[in-house]
């Protein structure tokens, strides 16, 4: 913020030194520079391609405290971004099979989906078994390790012998000649055991709702076992071919899924889960919002302009300036960030309502007749004083204003006349948006930069090009239109004035008291992550349904284990897993998935091999005797012994395992992260977070991650941070005002947005809306807009009526664009838009109060410092306003 204050001082200094003509050419140079840079950047964007980001992951707060956690989250996200899971359900088995077949057929025929079918799965399991089976003597289940360590070999051999005669026997993943005792088979079936609620039947994956008691009739087939709550559920998994975030793919998926839903037989339901559905929904909603805001704002602006200025020229020029601002914002933001988030475009579309202000002030000043003659002579003097106090107009500009009163002015003079106000307006908006840059939500950086560049570019366009392209109007109807508009625009001023000063003061005081009382009693803060949620309730319900079916409730919590080497990491996991296994015997946790369950550390593999060697292959030749007794051929025995010898000192490394492991298991291995190796331990059925946290705290290299809690905490701290930044923004703008007017009463200007903000939050609280981060971000704009209105009103008093009309038109456009945002179905945009809509309305209602309250202090100020031209300026301006409103 100190930078902002410093820059404002520099600007004041520049403005006090240079005359407008120099400022104009400076602006022209900046515009030319902007155009050149923009052209260069545009060519590079077209060369590299435009990238529109629709994933909300980009907007989520980054975990800066633990880089490793962020990397883990990113990896999880990347690993599953292109998968979709569908759940087809019905009470009727025949129907569910028919529907699932239909869905598979449609997905299979689609060019964007690749069904994860038998072929794919079998290939994966083949590769995995080949890798693991190449080292069959390195793996032992916990039970077998214990038995062998305690020398309980006879039981083991007896069981293996008997199993050969079982009805269902000798059917492990390795045949008896490769695993006579069944050691590897036992380890494999315990480590890679299938979930107990999913079965294959009729070529489909049937899922049960609960692993509790499964009761079924044989007539229902095996899926009858899975028929929980009399519903048959079939799981379909597919992989997305192409970019889930590509708009073409999203459009195709939306179309495909609507076809799938339409073709579902009656009595069948379909649930979806997958990033693509969220991304497609987000993109569709964002597109809808952009269309709503852009079209709504544009129509509003077209109607307003045609009514207010009759000629289509102001409209076309204004739209061009807005387009220029948006294009510049988009190009520079895209170039700096390498992409544009779709939310940036949504918020950007709402900027139309702010950027149009500059055009409105220009055309109101250029097109409407001057009312200076209706004011007292003091008006012109004070206008002069005002200008000199600001020191921003050249003698030429100043002279022009004086000379052309009651006459039509040139566009150049008009720009010179409004330059201080629109510049101050821009500055306050930049301060407001600049504060958003302080947020740690990454998406807001883009929004802030887009808005700042967009507004500054529109401002440059107005200042530099309007004098060159706008002619002097010549329509006899303009005066009538102006009169009509000014009656409406002045209504609030007239209303306040008729109440009388004392009543106004009382109302002002009461409003403050009311707002503060409401806030004190009713305000409810929210750090609910649902505010970041844009997915439809239907999609969330469907996802919850799939999660419930698959019994994955603890999806947002996991452990991260870190160590200096892959081997150290696996050993660390093995030690931690022992403690975790104990925890699974309590209600705190149901189960967990760790890499070391699937791939023991090298040390453990060697230990296992040595244990087997000592037990079966030592001098006692237990294995040889056993195989001989069973009737194995001499050849089979030789091959088995030879395989054992070959396996000596060879271990399966994480690199080898990762090549064969399914992507879903490999995802648990985070690998090398800045010199440290890390892995994830996924959890199922978490019911006592405290116990998990306590366990992790006992291990130096283990971190418990609770994403929901972390994000809620992050939102909470960002909300606090936003509150401080807002206070800082008020302070910064107060300093700017003091620098500009050099009188404390200038601070009255800041009272308008302050009270408007308080009232906005009070009304929201009364409506039982919880105040969150995005409401606070909206308040930054309320501050910026409120300051704009106030500052515009501090311009030359001869302009007051025109300024009030311009402020009125400006407030209408703001309300229109932000009001349309408040209709958004996306909670964060809705909160943002709603806050600004209310804030703008309060700003518009309260702005005239500045002049009324200022009036009460005028005499006092004069007494205090009769020679102070600055104080005269503000007071006289306020008195002009009063005289106008009283007419």
């Amino acid at each position: 913020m100190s930078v902002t204050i410093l820059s404002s001082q520099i600007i004041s200094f520049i403005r006090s030194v240079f005359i407008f003509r120099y400022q104009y050419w400076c602006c022209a140079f900046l515009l030319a520079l902007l155009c050149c840079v923009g052209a260069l950047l545009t060519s590079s964007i077209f060369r590299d391609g435009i990238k529109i980001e629709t994933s909300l992951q980009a907007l989520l707060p980054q975990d800066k405290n633990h880089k490793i956690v962020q990397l883990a989250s990113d990896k999880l996200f990347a690993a599953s971004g292109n998968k979709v899971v569908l759940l087809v359900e019905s009470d009727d088995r025949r129907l569910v099979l028919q529907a699932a077949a239909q869905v598979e057929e449609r997905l299979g025929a689609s060019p964007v989906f690749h069904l994860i079918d038998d072929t794919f799965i079998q290939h994966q399991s083949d590769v995995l078994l080949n890798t693991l089976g190449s080292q069959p003597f390195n793996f032992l289940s916990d039970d077998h390790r214990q038995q062998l360590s305690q020398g309980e070999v006879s039981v083991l051999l007896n069981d293996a012998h008997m199993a050969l005669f079982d009805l269902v026997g000798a059917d492990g993943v390795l045949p008896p000649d490769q695993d006579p005792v069944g050691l590897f088979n036992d380890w494999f079936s315990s480590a890679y055991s299938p979930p107990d609620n999913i079965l294959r039947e009729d070529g489909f994956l049937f899922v049960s709702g609960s692993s509790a008691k499964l009761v079924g009739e044989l007539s229902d087939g095996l899926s009858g076992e899975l028929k929980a709550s009399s519903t048959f559920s079939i799981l379909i998994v597919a992989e997305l071919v192409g970019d889930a975030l590509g708009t073409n793919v999203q459009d195709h998926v939306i179309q495909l899924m609507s076809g799938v839903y339409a073709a579902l037989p009656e009595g069948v339901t379909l649930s979806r889960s997958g990033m693509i559905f969220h991304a497609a929904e987000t993109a569709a909603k964002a597109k809808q919002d952009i269309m709503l805001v852009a079209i709504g704002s544009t129509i509003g602006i077209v109607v307003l302009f045609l009514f207010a200025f009759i000629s289509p020229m102001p409209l076309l020029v204004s739209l061009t300036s807005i387009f220029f601002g948006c294009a510049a914002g988009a190009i520079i933001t895209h170039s700096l960030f390498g992409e544009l988030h779709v939310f940036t475009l949504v918020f950007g579309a709402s900027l139309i309502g702010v950027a149009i202000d500059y055009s409105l002030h220009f055309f109101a000043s250029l097109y409407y007749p001057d009312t200076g003659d209706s004011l007292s002579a003091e008006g012109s003097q004070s206008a002069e004083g005002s200008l000199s106090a600001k020191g921003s107009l050249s003698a030429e500009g100043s002279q022009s204003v004086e000379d052309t009163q009651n006459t039509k002015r040139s566009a150049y003079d008009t720009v010179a006349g409004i330059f201080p106000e629109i510049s101050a307006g821009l500055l306050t908006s930049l301060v407001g948006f600049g504060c958003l840059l302080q947020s740690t939500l990454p998406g807001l950086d883009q929004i802030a930069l887009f808005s700042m560049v967009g507004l500054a570019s529109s401002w440059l366009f107005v200042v530099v090009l309007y004098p060159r392209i706008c002619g002097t109007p010549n329509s006899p109807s303009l005066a009538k239109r102006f009169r009509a508009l000014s009656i409406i625009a002045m209504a609030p001023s007239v209303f306040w004035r008729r109440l009388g000063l004392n009543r106004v003061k009382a109302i002002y005081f009461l409003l403050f008291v009311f707002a503060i009382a409401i806030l004190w009693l009713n305000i409810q803060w929210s750090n609910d992550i649902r505010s970041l949620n844009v997915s439809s309730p239907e999609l969330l319900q469907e996802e919850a349904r799939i999660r419930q079916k698959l019994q994955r409730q603890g999806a947002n919590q996991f452990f991260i284990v870190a160590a200096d080497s892959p081997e150290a990491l696996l050993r660390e996991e093995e030690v931690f897993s022992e403690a975790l296994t104990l925890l699974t015997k309590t209600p705190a946790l149901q189960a967990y998935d760790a890499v070391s369950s699937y791939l023991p550390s090298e040390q453990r593999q060697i230990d296992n091999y040595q244990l087997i060697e000592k037990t079966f292959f030592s001098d006692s030749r237990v294995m040889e005797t056993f195989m001989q007794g069973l009737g194995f051929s001499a050849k089979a025995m030789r091959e088995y012994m030879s395989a054992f010898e070959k396996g000596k000192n060879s271990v399966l490394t994480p690199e080898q395992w990762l090549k064969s492991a399914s992507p879903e298991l490999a995802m648990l291995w985070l690998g090398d992260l800045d010199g440290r190796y890390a892995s994830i331990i996924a959890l199922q059925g978490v019911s006592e977070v405290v116990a998990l946290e306590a366990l992790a705290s006992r291990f130096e290299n283990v971190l418990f991650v609770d994403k929901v809690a972390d994000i809620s905490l992050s939102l909470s701290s960002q909300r606090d941070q936003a509150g401080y930044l807002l206070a800082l923004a008020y302070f910064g703008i107060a300093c700017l005002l003091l620098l500009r007017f050099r009188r404390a009463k200038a601070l009255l200007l800041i009272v308008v947005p302050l009270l408007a903000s308080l009232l906005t939050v009070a009304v929201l609280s009364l409506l039982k809306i919880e105040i969150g981060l995005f409401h606070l971000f909206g308040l930054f704009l309320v501050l910026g807009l409120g300051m704009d209105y106030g500052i515009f009103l501090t311009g030359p008093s001869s302009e007051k009526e025109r300024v009030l009309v311009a402020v009125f038109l400006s407030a209408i456009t703001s309300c229109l664009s932000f009001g349309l945002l408040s209709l958004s179905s996306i909670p964060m945009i809705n909160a943002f838009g709603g806050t600004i809509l209310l804030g703008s309305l309060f700003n518009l209602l309260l702005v005239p109060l500045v002049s009324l309250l200022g009036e009460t202090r005028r005499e006092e100020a004069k007494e205090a410092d009769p020679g102070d031209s600055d104080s005269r300026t503000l007071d006289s301006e306020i008195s002009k306003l009063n005289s106008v409103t009283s007419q």
Partner: protein
Amino acid sequence: MNVASVLSCTFVIVMSLSASVFASASADVNADVNEKANAKVVEKSNVEPNQNALTLEKITDQIELKPFLRGAFRQERTLKGFNRTLVSSGQYYFWKDHGLYWEVQKPFFRATTFGNDLTISWSSPGEVSSSTAPKLIQKQISKVLIAVLGADIETLQRYFVATAHYNPVADGGEEGDKRGVTDNGEAGERDEASAKKLTWSMQLEPKDFATRKALKQLDLIGGTSIHEIRVTSSNGGITHIQFSGPNMLEQPLKKQCELYYPQTTEEMCQ
């Protein structure tokens, strides 16, 4: 989409894929990677689909099963790497809707009850060594076994492509049933008593690729009940089970019932 959705989504996908892979891997036996997975089930039978359906329907009608069936079996298993056949014999009880009791008597005693809710191992007659709720995959195996022994064709067809034909009868009194059924199911109009003497063969090939990698083929031979089962594993192992002396009853005796419900109340096994 909130972060919960993002992560939930991730884990849902992980879970479902893992499920698929694990379910597949567990059923696999010494997989040969070179055998590409895109092999479709080829219906080797020359029998027309409609004709096959009629045959299966007729077999279903022909099966005569009372709620409780008691019989003897002899099992011969030939496994890769062995220089002898593993022979065992014993008795079995098949109790409809309650499960299968399989008792190996030779070369040693070993018995298992594949019940609906329990898998019970017997260390000696009447002595339970373990009683556990079976995992779903184990239940799947026992249900298939029960469907095989009960010749429950409807259930079997959920897992296998079934092709069937009637075998020529040795006594010459009956014609080969292939012909009879080929004639648009006219066999159904034959004399019912003679039809019951017909024997049939059924070939079952797993529909599911994962199961196919473990189990190449199941061959059943039967009449009014199952006579023989031949299991050909993908790794070359062959198990041949012959059944004899089936004795059908309306309900089991108390001691037989207790093999299914060893710790239940008396009412259950009166």
